[in-house]
């Protein structure tokens, strides 16, 4: 038994290549987005890139209204993300200030408060209420929190003297001892 063979004229090769490239590209974009969402915060061991924090007036660092992370190399840097509307942040505010008071005279530790999607008026009320004195500023355009992949406030990042992230605290600290336990090993 015999049958006629249809001439084999499919889709042009270049069209097939373009369609497949388009689909693969789309899948890569979706996969990258999903993996980034599931990554969580930046992980300890990672060198933290430089960023600039514009400080609130009255909370400057040595009179400068802007601080760069790179300028703090050689010091342990404690980066605390907070907001005035955040109730858990209030639980650790006094502890952070107490720890800052203890470490400030050593000159080896710097605390930076990064105010996350907040209004300056309410932020100032908060800072005054808890007597916070370490440098604080707004996370403009949420660039810093996006870099650290902050999910919620409060979150605190401990960067060692070489600029390497050593510890991440998600949620509030409940005691000064808890804060000391993260800073002291980085001073040795």
């Amino acid at each position, binding site marked *: *038994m*015999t*049958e*006629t*063979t*249809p*001439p*084999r*004229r*499919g*889709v*042009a090769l270049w*069209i097939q290549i*373009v*369609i497949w490239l*388009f689909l693969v590209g789309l899948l890569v974009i979706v996969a990258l987005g999903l993996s980034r969402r599931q990554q969580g915060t930046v992980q300890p061991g990672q060198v933290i890139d430089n960023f600039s924090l514009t400080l609130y007036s009255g909370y400057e660092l040595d009179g400068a209204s802007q601080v760069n992370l790179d300028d703090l190399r050689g010091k342990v840097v404690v980066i605390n993300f907070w*907001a*005035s*509307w955040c109730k858990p942040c209030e639980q650790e505010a006094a502890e952070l200030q107490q720890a800052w008071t203890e470490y400030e005279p050593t000159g080896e530790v710097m605390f930076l408060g990064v105010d996350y*999607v*907040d*209004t300056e*008026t*309410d932020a100032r009320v908060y800072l005054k209420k808890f007597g916070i004195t370490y440098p604080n500023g*707004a996370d*403009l*355009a*949420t*660039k810093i929190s*996006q870099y650290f992949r902050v999910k919620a406030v409060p979150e605190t990042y401990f960067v060692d003297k070489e600029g390497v992230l050593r510890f991440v605290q998600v949620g509030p600290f409940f005691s000064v001892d808890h804060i000391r336990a993260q800073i002291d090993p980085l001073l040795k």
Partner: protein
Amino acid sequence: MPKRRIRNTQYAILLILLATLFATLSVALAQGTSPTDDEVNKIAKKLYCPVCENTPLDVCPTEACRQWREQIREMLSEGKSEAEIVDYFAVTYGERASGDPRDKLKAYLVPAMAILLGAALLVSALRAWRKPLVAESAIPKSDAKPVQQDEYISRVEEELKKRN
């Protein structure tokens, strides 16, 4: 009652009336300059909650949103325009705070181009897939080349013939 006492009482009443009038006017003037909730919400509708994704600011119940609405009210009181306020929020809190992207070229043109490209590719592919059918019918049956029938299909056909 001495005349002087009566006059003093009249002065006192007049003074109280003037004070009341002044206080009422002050309150009325203060209310007049403060933006209404509708004015605030008109702008808040164009902004999005920084904490809960995809929730417009005017209906968001969180404390963060309440503070933002107050910020809008303050800026309106200072005489800022709607565009200035939306721009301030986009610069201070990032593009995601604004419902209207600033880089319209990137936000609208790129997806539109991608859709057009996809549609063009699809049309092109469908046309190419339809061509063989036309080509097949155009070939005279006498010119058709014989092909080797699959052995399995031949056996199935034979079995079917037997059953019929």
